[in-house]
């Protein structure tokens, strides 16, 4: 996407003016930062469905007792899917920070929306059953429904584009929203991602042997796979001039976005790392930054053998020496939410000047030469950070976020 508004040739800067998050690390930015600052391991035994026959038994989960007991608005929140509740939490936090933010568009990422309602429905159908909850499951199952629920909850009536680019969805959504503002076609765009854990997806990754029965150890020599997570993240993006005119605080700037499609295989990256590399190179070019200018990379880092090898190779080839961590080690892989949640981790890293940790790390992989932020967060001087998300179907996306300097 062109860096300039075509009408006057002036570069449009894109500000993050509000953010909200819910994840296994906590409800809201403050709780999340506390968890990041102590490198909390939030992966726990799965409780939502039986995993007795699965290799993997753990995930990063958001406790229902808090999630489902948020202040209620309207007459039907009990019908909503957990994913809706997550996105509502995140959006409410963002709206509370900037109640005057009036988006023209919402671009949100997900992979599976209200999948567990589809599971409930199918189990009932198989038993020739029909419960009073069946219509609720059907109406709230569609992947885009939580996005509409959250907008509705916060009284925001805007068009909504829901991107489903597998595990890159959240970063793709933020990147596309960024480009919508930077192109000058929109002043304000709401963006983010969401996903709630479900049995089908959990078993799916288990069947591929992508998930691990052990700890999630991204980039470790002895890594054995991923664990799943869940959550939601929201970012309010605005033309910087417009944000200044409104006098709202600028939390950070998004300055670059790159994406690529890796056609190597439906579920595996090209081992050369060409897909991730193309996305990161494009993001740097879009930001007008050199690789040396990037102080930290929040890696996709699922801890699968193939992903970490390809991503690690691409990072090592492109960047001289940069601090890298995968925060999925703390909360699991939240799929469509991951890009949004991790963008918020980057935001907090820039604001509080720390490098989030890559926990459970024991030994470097001799084939992946990276400066891993191992096990403990580090204080740092951060100006520019990059966040990666890669997904099935060869979807690769990277964004660059920078500390706001007026």
């Amino acid at each position, binding site marked *: *996407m*062109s860096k300039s508004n075509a009408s006057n040739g002036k570069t449009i800067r894109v500000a993050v003016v509000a953010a909200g998050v819910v994840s296994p690390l906590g409800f809201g930015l403050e709780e999340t930062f506390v968890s990041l600052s102590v490198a909390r391991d939030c992966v726990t035994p799965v409780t939502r469905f039986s*995993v007795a*026959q699965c290799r993997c038994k753990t995930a990063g989960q958001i406790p229902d007792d808090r999630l489902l007991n948020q202040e209620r608005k309207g007459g039907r929140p009990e019908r909503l899917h957990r994913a809706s509740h997550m996105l509502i939490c995140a959006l409410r936090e963002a709206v509370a920070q900037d109640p005057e933010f009036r988006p023209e568009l919402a671009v949100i990422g*997900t*992979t599976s*929306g209200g999948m567990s309602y*589809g599971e409930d*429905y*199918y*189990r009932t*159908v198989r038993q*020739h059953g*029909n419960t009073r909850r*069946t*219509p609720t499951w*059907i*109406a709230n199952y*569609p*992947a*885009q*429904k939580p996005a*509409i629920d959250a*907008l*509705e909850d916060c009284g925001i*009536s*805007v*068009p*909504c*584009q*829901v*991107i*489903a*680019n*597998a595990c890159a969805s959240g970063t*793709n959504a933020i990147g*596309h929203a960024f*480009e919508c503002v930077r*192109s000058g076609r929109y002043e304000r765009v709401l963006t983010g991602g969401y996903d709630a854990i479900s*049995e*089908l997806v959990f*078993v*799916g*990754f*288990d*069947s*591929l*042997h992508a998930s691990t029965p052990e700890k999630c150890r991204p980039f470790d020599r002895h890594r054995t796979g991923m664990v799943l997570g869940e959550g939601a993240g929201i970012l309010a993006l605005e033309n910087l001039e417009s944000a200044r005119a409104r006098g709202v605080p600028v939390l950070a700037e998004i300055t670059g976005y790159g*994406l690529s*499609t*890796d*056609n190597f295989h*439906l*579920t595996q990256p090209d081992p050369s790392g060409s897909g991730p590399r*193309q996305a990161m190179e494009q993001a740097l070019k879009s930001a007008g930054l050199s690789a040396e200018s990037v102080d930290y990379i929040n890696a996709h880092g699922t801890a699968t053998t193939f992903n970490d090898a390809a991503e690690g190779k691409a990072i090592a080839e492109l960047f001289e020496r940069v601090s890298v961590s995968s925060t999925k080690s703390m909360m699991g892989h939240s799929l469509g939410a991951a890009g949004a949640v991790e963008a918020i981790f980057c935001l907090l890293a820039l604001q509080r000047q720390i490098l989030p940790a890559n926990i459970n790390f024991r030994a470097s992989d001799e084939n992946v030469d990276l400066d891993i932020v191992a096990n403990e967060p580090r204080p740092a001087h951060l100006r520019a950070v990059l966040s990666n998300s890669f*997904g*099935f*179907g*060869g*979807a690769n996306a990277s964004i660059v976020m920078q500390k706001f300097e007026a």
Partner: protein
Amino acid sequence: MSLCIAGMGWVTPLGSGVNPVWRRLLQGDESAPESIEESPGHRSYSIFRVPDSALASLKPHPRLRRASAISRFATAAGLEALEDAGINLDPENAKKIALVFAVSNGGVIYTKRFYRDIVESGPQSASPLFFPETVFNAPASHLAAILGITGTTYTLVGDGAVGLLAVRMAEDLMANQELDHCLVVGAEEADWVLCDAYRKWRLLRVHPPIEPFSKTTRGTILSEGAGAIVLGREGPIRIERTHAGGYYRKRNETELVITQILSELAKNKIDIVISSANGTFIDKAESGAISAVIPRAQVYTEKPALGESVGAGGLWQIIAGAKSLIAAELPPLLHLTAEIPLHVSATRAVIPGSQRAVVISCGLNQQVAGICLAATP
């Protein structure tokens, strides 16, 4: 920014190919229903399936070996649209084309099969071959791999309005002058479990026909297939205006939202409206909005002939709108049972001098979007 439709591709229960399907619609043909039953004791439903012959010309490709029906539909439509636009993709120009894929229910056949195995035989029997095909962007991934697209690929998920939302997204993407074209594909596959869900949602009738704009809404019939358009800087049909869409909170708000969108689209004289009326509650809402905003336009919906294909539906409507402007005529509106305050024709209708067509898609799950097409002078 001026964008045009440079090429189109169509895979439907009436066959494949834009011109053959259009001819059949003009003749008043309608899809043949197929009865499907999940297992003994479960209710049977009617769907409109894509006949095997419609994919006969699709060349084998390793990516399609195990791919679900939706991926095959998407590929066939996408390839036809590119051929129609005269685009031969090579590594160089493949960098200058984006792919936006619109979907609603996605790979439901493999999703159901994968989950059925979990439920019936336990997680250990779930096939790792099926799981990747359950992901919404699997069809887009296959299509990108077949075409050699390595840059921008998005999958957009939504209800029946998602096809038009995808066109709007493509328009946003094409603000990047480095892109020459954007291939927009919408696809869907039909399955018993979807029919059952739509019936329990009180939106499906068990047997055809779909009766559009009927006083009593008897429900729709699900179908499958794909539609594709290539957006470029030149072409016979111009995208005069897009509306980014909206959503209705309750069904009684639907007409108001459609009215707002139509009002913003109808800045000039509109000759044709391609409606998404499908035998459900949206028919009344669209009828009310169209009669209020564009009362003189000739109204058509292809759904009685082709069925409700949800994720593909919006693209099918756009193709019908584009063909109606090019041909200056509309197919007969089938199974009209009521007197309605709209200009409709139960026979093939010539519309001389038609310049603009509005396409309005109202989904069953709250989303609404519209675009205005114009004949290129």
